[in-house]
């Protein structure tokens, strides 16, 4: 029987009441007395030398209060990279300064070089139009191979080859892997592109800076996935504000998908402007600004080789990747193509030799950083595409080839050659489940039916693994992370027994307010509605690291469990006193404390009341009150995995691909709220289908963004997507966190692109098509068919 509340129940998302009835409070909904407006002046060339910026006429325009340029921020710090990556030779990566406003040069279309603050937004825009910037256009550096080859043309003058780093994982394995591939009976080679994506959160970025001259306190209200991290970056690295004088609030946030992890210069600017003016300063991006200034995702060019025995046994994998980092290093940009990508390159397989090389390249494009999946979709696409190609070359069924090489349940914990230790999994189980829910056996009949209608039907399989629950701080510290990746929770019990849980994770659509409350309510045996989750305000919540990398439940949820355990332990002491029993005899279940072996008991609410009205209370032993904080640092990553199946129909005359069905059999470990999990998979798969068939961020050779609006950037819409069949009944619980959970937020976006492209290639394989790059747009599919003919 499905539960109707607590852990395992599909409790309805309480936050949806305000989201769906227009009662959400997003940053741009917040207006304050005396508010001013910021407008950013952005470069319309990809690369240029700033000779001068004359703001004198603009300063005299109606309503103008202040104008800032890069010159105003030469004394403050830069926005740092969060991870320091070393080159293959052990030397550190190149880390150019990322200023609040462009200084000296503009480095991508959309790079902000001035900001106008005015009484109204329109006045700020009017003034921006008369700023006279003398920007001498320089040749744009767009293509990664060209960027590396042409040392005369530099994104950053001090970096002569436009190379951020040349990373080998694991460098010591390089020669062994080379030899294994050289000596292998069969090698399948595939060159592929992980297309560049624009995140397109429904809410564009927005920030309000405020400063109180009376106290010296700064307040930033902003669209962030991790307010404490943003606070740390601004206070310590960029502006030098004492940390206790800055509060960062991320109120309701309309999606992030990674793009709102990072600190952006606009946030520092509105704070600096608020201090200068003594008035609140609001900025809200237009959608056009979002396209050119949000951190983009993916953008890898990869060659992957899979060496096998003739019977299909995997021998080695080697990859060679160029990863576009854009013009500046966004906060996670150096971790994404490395430790979130190279460490996953063994996939679900017992492949003894793996070597990953990644060269990360500066170009005159917007910064590129983690986007839903972040490195793992790139790895999954590379592996699952080359495995599929290998199966065709060897004449082995693609599912059987995977099964033959799967890590077996008795091999866990399993140490891969790329340094991860998978704690648990059962990949044959998810593959079996997929066969059932996708009716793979019925494919040939469906194919014949499609054929009768003149359509080519294809079936594609992918089996992904990802590393979530980011991350063990000591491990990531060794790997170059400049932050810890624990999380934190405070469980505050009121005198009447209701609860506020202050969490470091941030919910921007994920449903934490519901699922976290389910955990606490279940542990305490009280109604879910008696538990509220508080997040997003650094003045209220403990120092947690926010939401990304499918980490919230696995890491912050574990902190919630630990803090709740502490509350229960203290409450048992109070109950023992009230029941005049030994603490060791107190049992707690369903909201009742009882003395073992007796009928003596006391309710949760009576104990909590005693904690705050301690008239009859062991004051000499314990303090009054009932509030506990816990920090949780995971011992390992978590490893969700799953089997995905996509069926497509291709119209050979037009190249149009229709997704006919999509099935996902995931192992997320234990599940707190099945409905929320299903929704997360739906959304992730929609984004994966978007990447595979529709979305493409394209710059021309001059660095102009050709896909700069929804007229040219194709987002998936409802009629592009099928009804999904989603299952998460295969459960191998995570072995190292208290809930046994693994995380589900990114899985759909990781597992689906290779399933879709494998299906498209399957539909066209008898024409001789062996690969097609994403997005498999009608024009590309048609061209691939023509080329194969």
């Amino acid at each position, binding site marked *: 029987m499905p539960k109707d509340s607590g852990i395992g129940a599909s409790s309805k998302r309480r936050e949806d009441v305000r989201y769906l009835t227009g009662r959400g409070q997003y940053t741009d909904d917040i207006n304050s007395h005396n508010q001013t407006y910021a407008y950013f002046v952005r470069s319309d060339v990809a690369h240029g030398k700033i000779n001068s910026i004359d703001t004198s006429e603009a300063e005299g325009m109606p309503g103008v209060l202040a104008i800032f340029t890069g010159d105003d921020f030469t004394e403050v710090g830069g926005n740092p990279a969060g991870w320091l990556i070393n080159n293959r030779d052990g030397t550190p990566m190149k880390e150019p300064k990322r200023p609040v406003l462009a200084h000296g040069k503009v480095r991508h279309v959309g790079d902000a070089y001035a900001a106008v603050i005015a009484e109204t937004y329109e006045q700020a825009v009017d003034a921006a139009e008369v700023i006279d910037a003398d920007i001498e256009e320089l040749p744009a550096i767009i293509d990664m191979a060209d960027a590396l080859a042409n040392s005369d043309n530099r994104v950053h003058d001090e970096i002569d080859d436009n190379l951020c780093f040349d990373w080998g994982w694991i460098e010591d394995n390089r020669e062994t892997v080379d030899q294994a591939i050289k000596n292998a009976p069969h090698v399948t080679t595939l060159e592929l592109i992980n297309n560049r994506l624009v995140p397109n959160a429904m809410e564009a970025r927005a920030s309000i800076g405020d400063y109180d001259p009376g106290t010296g306190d700064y307040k930033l209200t902003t669209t962030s996935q991790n307010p404490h991290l943003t606070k740390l970056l601004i206070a310590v690295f960029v502006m030098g504000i004492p940390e206790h004088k800055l509060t960062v609030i991320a109120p309701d946030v309309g999606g992030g998908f990674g793009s709102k992890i990072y600190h952006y210069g606009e946030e520092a600017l509105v704070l600096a402007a608020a201090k200068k003016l003594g008035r609140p300063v609001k900025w809200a991006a237009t959608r056009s600004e979002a396209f050119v200034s949000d951190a983009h995702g993916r953008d890898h060019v990869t060659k992957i080789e899979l060496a096998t025995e003739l019977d299909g046994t995997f021998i080695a994998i080697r990859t060679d990747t160029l990863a576009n980092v854009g013009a500046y290093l966004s906060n996670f940009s150096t971790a994404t193509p490395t430790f979130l990508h190279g460490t996953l390159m063994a996939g679900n397989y017992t492949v003894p030799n793996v070597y990953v090389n990644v060269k990360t390249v500066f170009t005159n494009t917007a910064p590129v950083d983690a986007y839903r999946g972040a490195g793992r979709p790139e790895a999954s696409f590379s592996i699952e595409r080359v495995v599929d190609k290998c199966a065709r070359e060897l004449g082995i069924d693609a599912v059987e080839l995977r099964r033959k090489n799967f890590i077996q349940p008795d091999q866990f914990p399993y140490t891969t050659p790329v340094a991860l230790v998978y704690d648990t999994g059962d990949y044959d189980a998810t593959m079996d489940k997929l066969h059932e829910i996708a009716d793979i056996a019925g494919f040939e009949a469906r194919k014949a039916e499609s054929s009768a209608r003149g359509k080519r039907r294809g079936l594609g399989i992918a089996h992904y693994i990802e590393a979530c629950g980011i991350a063990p701080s000591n491990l990531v510290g060794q790997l170059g992370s400049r932050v810890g990746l624990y999380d934190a929770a405070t469980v505050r019990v009121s005198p009447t027994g209701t609860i506020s849980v202050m969490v470091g994770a941030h919910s921007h659509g994920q449903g934490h307010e519901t699922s976290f409350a389910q955990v606490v309510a279940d542990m305490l045996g009280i109604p879910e509605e008696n538990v509220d989750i508080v997040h997003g305000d650094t003045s209220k919540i403990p120092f947690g690291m926010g939401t990304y990398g499918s980490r919230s439940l696995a890491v912050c949820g574990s902190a919630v469990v630990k803090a709740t355990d502490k509350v229960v332990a203290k409450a048992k002491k109070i109950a023992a006193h009230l029941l005049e029993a030994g603490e060791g005899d107190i049992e707690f279940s369903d909201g009742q404390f009882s003395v073992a072996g007796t009928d003596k008991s006391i309710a949760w609410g009576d104990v909590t009341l005693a904690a705050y009205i301690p008239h009859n209370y062991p004051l000499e032993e314990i303090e009054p009150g009932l509030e506990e904080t816990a920090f949780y640092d995971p011992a390992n990553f978590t490893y969700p995995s799953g089997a995905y199946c996509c069926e497509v129909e291709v119209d050979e005359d*037009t190249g149009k691909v229709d997704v006919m069905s999509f099935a996902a059999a995931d192992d997320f470990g234990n599940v707190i709220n099945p409905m929320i999990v299903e929704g997360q998979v739906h959304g992730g798969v929609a984004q994966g289908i978007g990447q595979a068939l529709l979305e493409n961020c394209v710059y021309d050779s001059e660095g102009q963004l050709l*896909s700069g609006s*929804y007229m*040219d*950037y194709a987002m998936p819409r409802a009629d592009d997507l099928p009804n999904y069949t989603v299952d998460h009944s295969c459960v191998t619980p995570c072995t190292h966190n208290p809930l046994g959970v693994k995380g589900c937020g990114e899985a759909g976006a990781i597992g689906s692109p290779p399933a879709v492209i494998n299906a498209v290639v399957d539909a066209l394989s008898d024409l001789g098509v062996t690969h097609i790059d994403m997005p498999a*747009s*009608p024009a590309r599919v*048609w061209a691939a068919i023509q080329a194969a003919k």
Partner: protein
Amino acid sequence: MYNFDFEKPSTVADAVTALASEDALALGGGQTLIPTIKQRLAAPSKLVSLSGISEMQGVSASGGSLHIGGATIHADVAADSHYPALSALAGNIGDPAVRNRGTIGGSLANNDPSSDYPAAALASGATINTNARSIAADDFFQGIFETALDEGEIITSVDFPVPDAACYKKFEQPASRFALVGVFVAKTAGGVRVAVTGASEEGVHRWTAAEDALNANFSADALDGLSVSSENLIGDLHGTPEYRAHLVKVLTARSVSDC
């Protein structure tokens, strides 16, 4: 956007007078003009809304012809039953919001190279009526965003002769869902007309070779020997000229089959 004056006259004559001001622009449904103004890419001194002119509203049929007021929204054309191929076309322009604001006169006057109505007007042999004259569709469309309209001239109505059979096939550009290529085939007593939108650098145009073939044999097979040159066709993110040339033929055949 920049500041501008706004007028909403109730007669064509008043609209013509209002449009005589320097840099005044007529506002139909605003589906192109308003976003352009918001991005400060257009700076009219005055907008003259045509939506308050009752004589420019509505759809009526008489004598085998459909008369559509210039300010009639797409949703109203979509709801009419006299010219099913035209109604189907109107019902698939943009999304419901667009269809309930955008007007036929605005669409034809704008002559976007990827919009649907120009293909219907050209294939149907429609007559575009203005405050000053009547213009045959063959003379009206003069290249991308170019028409025979003079400055300040207003499309007051459009007359569509209803063909014996007609069909419009649009292959949508994946992002905008405008026509990557759209082909309208109309079979009338006077012959077959084939109009192509979305494909050409020169805007909507007729494919006369297909018309000749279809006049001899109105079936998709009649197109077998024909090919479309990719010269002067549009090449962009979403398709090469060769792809568009291929689609012209595919969609023409499908239109004929479904006529």
